């Protein structure tokens, strides 16, 4: 039987033309946001100069533009070497770095520093170096699992770096904390690089050792506590943190390393008991140290009783002046270049947040905090969606270390915790900090590229 309308039916098969295309959506998003970030940075730098000097200085803007071109070059390279990398990481790092340069330049203007004496000029140079190093890391480490192989070497390197400031003649006290080393006039914070190596080591170690750390143990009050012999690692790291606290006289650095370890341990093993144990150990140790060592105790007093006339002109002078700066900024800020952030000692490095908070106001400070939060969340995304546990743990580790450092530094400036000698990631003046944080950018880009949350190739009808 044939149907009368057979002739009008379309043919069962037909020729369709298909094309394979590599999706570039992520990189295009990145490009758009990068251009926005560079524009924000340029405007911020220009406003600082107009606000504080009354005119625009061409040199700084030209140097800044050079940095912008460098970042755009990284973007172009990413299209080839890590096309699926997270599109937010690079623009956020860029805008934070740029706002930091604007803030540092603000202090330079107030202190009438120009040329190589100006921290802002050096910061731009360091930014260029840091971006180039980050780019090198991106090219060198094409597969992050390589790092797993060298975990013990990396761990040893981290240990050496972190303890370097304690070597007599090498360590240089800043603000009473021994977190800097000084070699031939060049200063460096070895802990900044050390924290990344530590994160790599922890990730590598925990991926291999987590089964024994999580599966066995005794249950008390519904929480499974580890066996005594498995306590080894946490005790070693705790002792190490205490050495840092007492030797380097810095609660922040100590808290950073120990906090990083605890969180990675918890994420790897899923045992809250580790957190409880660790917190008890740390708080107990810090308390004992504050009682045993006057300089640790003094830092606590200067924090708790900052406005006491006895300390406000002395131990807590910087903290109190920073808070006055923030208060002076208020909700809206004084406007870039129009505050008096230079009253605060180290306003371009440790207290860069007080500088920015004064001139950009609470609104600006919130915006910066949100940028950090977004940055950290992109790192956590790798933890949520990654395919290999080492990569996931490493992504969480390096982004948590940024979050914790932001908390410790800004918490110190706003009197949530005692003041420390750590630097604000991306913002503060200082080469070691910049290099370290840009390496974190490179690692996050590399890790996120490996997540492959979307197809490499798509079929498009032509």
């Amino acid at each position, binding site marked *: 039987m044939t149907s009368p309308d057979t002739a009008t039916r379309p043919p069962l098969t037909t020729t369709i033309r298909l094309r394979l295309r590599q999706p570039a959506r992520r990189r295009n998003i990145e490009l758009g946001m990068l251009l926005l970030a560079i524009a924000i940075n340029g405007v911020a730098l220009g406003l600082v100069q107009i606000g504080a000097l009354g005119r625009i200085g061409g040199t700084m803007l030209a140097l800044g533009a050079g940095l912008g071109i460098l970042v755009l070059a990284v973007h172009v390279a990413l299209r080839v070497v890590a096309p699926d990398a997270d599109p937010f990481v690079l623009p956020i790092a860029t805008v934070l770095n740029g706002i930091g340069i604007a803030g540092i330049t603000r202090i330079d203007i107030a202190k009438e520093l120009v040329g190589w004496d100006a921290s802002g000029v050096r910061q731009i140079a360091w930014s260029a170096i840091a971006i180039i190093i980050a780019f090198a890391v991106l090219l060198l480490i094409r597969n992050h699992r390589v790092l797993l192989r060298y975990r013990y070497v990396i761990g040893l390197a981290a240990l050496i770096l972190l303890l370097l400031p304690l070597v007599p003649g090498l360590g240089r006290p800043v603000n009473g904390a021994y977190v800097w080393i000084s070699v031939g006039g060049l200063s460096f914070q070895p802990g900044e690089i050390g924290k990344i190596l530590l994160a790599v080591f922890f990730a590598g170690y925990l991926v291999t050792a987590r089964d024994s750390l999580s599966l066995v143990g005794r249950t008390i009050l519904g929480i499974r506590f580890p066996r005594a012999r498995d306590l080894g690692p946490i005790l070693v790291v705790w002792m190490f943190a205490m050495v840092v606290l007492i030797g380097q006289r810095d609660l922040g650095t100590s808290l950073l390393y120990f906090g990083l370890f605890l969180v990675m341990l918890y*994420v790897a093993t899923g045992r809250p008991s580790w957190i409880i144990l660790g917190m008890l150990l740390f708080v107990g140790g810090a308390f004992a140290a504050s009682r045993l060592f006057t300089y640790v105790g003094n830092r606590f007093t200067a924090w708790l009783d900052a406005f006491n006339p006895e300390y406000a002109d002395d131990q807590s002078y910087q903290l109190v002046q920073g808070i006055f700066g923030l208060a*002076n900024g208020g909700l809206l800020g004084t406007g870039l270049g129009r505050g008096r952030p230079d009253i605060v000692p180290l306003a371009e490095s440790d207290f860069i947040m007080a500088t920015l908070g004064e001139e950009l106001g609470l609104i600006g400070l919130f915006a910066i905090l949100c940028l950090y939060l977004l940055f950290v969340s992109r790192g956590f995304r790798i933890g949520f969606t990654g395919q290999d546990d080492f990569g996931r743990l490493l992504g969480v580790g390096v982004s948590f270390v940024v979050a914790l450092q932001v*908390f410790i530094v800004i918490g110190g400036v706003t*009197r949530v915790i005692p003041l420390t000698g750590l630097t604000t990631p991306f913002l503060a003046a200082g080469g070691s900090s910049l290099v370290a944080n840009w390496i974190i950018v490179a690692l996050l880009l590399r890790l996120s590229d490996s997540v492959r949350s979307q197809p490499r190739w798509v079929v498009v009808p032509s």
Partner: protein
Amino acid sequence: MNKELRRVSVLVLLMFLALFTSSSIIQVFQQDELAANPFNARTLYDSFSAERGSILVDGIAIANSVPVDDEYSYQREYSNGPLYAAVTGYFTLDQGTTGIEGELNDFLSGTASEQFLDRVNAILTGQNPQGAAVQVTIDPAVQQAAWDALGDLKGSVVAIDPTTGAILAMVSTPSFDPNDLASHNSSVVIDNYTELLNDTDDPLINRAISGDLYHPGSTFKLIVAAAALESGEYTPDSELPNPRTITLPESSSVVSNSGGGACGGGDTVTIADALRLSCNVPFAELGQELGYEAIAAQAARFGFGDESISVPMSVTPSIFPQTESEAQLMLSSFGQANVRVTPLEMAMVSGAIATGGTQMLPTLVDKIVAPDLSIVQALEPQVYGTPLSSETAALMRDMMINNVASGAASNATITGVDVAGKTGTAQNGEGEPYTLWFTGFAPADNPQVAVAVVVEDGGGLGQSGFGNTVAAPIAKKVIEAVLNR
């Protein structure tokens, strides 16, 4: 691993929440408190480098900020420093501020909460912050007349408009030049400040409202007379015994009238005559009859002991001290013993009588004008209290007119105008020069000014100066300046 990650995410959120909270507390909630902290140098720098508002008298600046090329950007200048020093006060880098400069600093520097929108506007438009101008109630002609009349004498003149409380003149001599303390060179300021501070004549003290206060002498009889009339048991014609002297109870001290004789000719004397001739003996008797409570209550109604009066500089409370001793009470009744007053308080007493019993709150602030010429705050006359009834006020006024017309205050007479007044010649101890007083108001039927004049050190005449010879002529010139406006 994802469950743990979620928990760590929450931890990170909490950490950031702590930062959001702490920064909000500092930058918003504690902002004012932190700005007022004595360790906060920013507030000082800002109040110097803002274009500080002017202090105006009748629309003309007596203090203004001139741009200069140093770290503070603006220099404070006083166009007629010594004349207005009691009003403006001084404004220094690190030796504090006084007067209007100190009390209205928030407005002058533009940091008052009323000027919040102006500040936002200045930020948005990129302009320099600007303070508000303060127009004071001082009348330049009256101030000048008071200044000229006091001349080289040490003392003070306060003139107020009794119907509004507006202070028309406030002079304190010897004065100082606030320009000497406005320098941006700290050591110059400290040198000048130390010199002024060590000056035994205390030029930095505003004698009109503060300092060591004065014995009111016979001017206090106004308050005793008012207390008597208010009690309802006395009229101006009530008779009091009229001995030449009276010996104080439980004491060998003798009170006599200033002339040494009896008060008028009779065996008795009326309250009106005792006030007109300013006799001490009858008032000592009257005070004894009235008792401590009645006089203290009347003094308190006039504002004695009130610490809250500010113009806006706070006014040292005048004192009618608690006493159990009748001798002390009798001495207090003609303004001796431990009674102490400010010239402003005495002007307020005259003002209350002038208006028929309504006492206005004195003030120096006419209006505060924002940089955009909008009025931030304008003088609204405020009633301080009703220390005496209109009947008592009328009787008091008539007695005070007689004081000037045919009594002990004759040197305040102005042809064609009824001047009401009371003199005082207060003793300050054995051999010490007198404190000379005049307080009063004019015209009596339509009062435009209430005035108090005090001259220290007997006006240079030791114990031969009298209120009527030294203070009354000064008051006369001040009153004439008001009437000639």
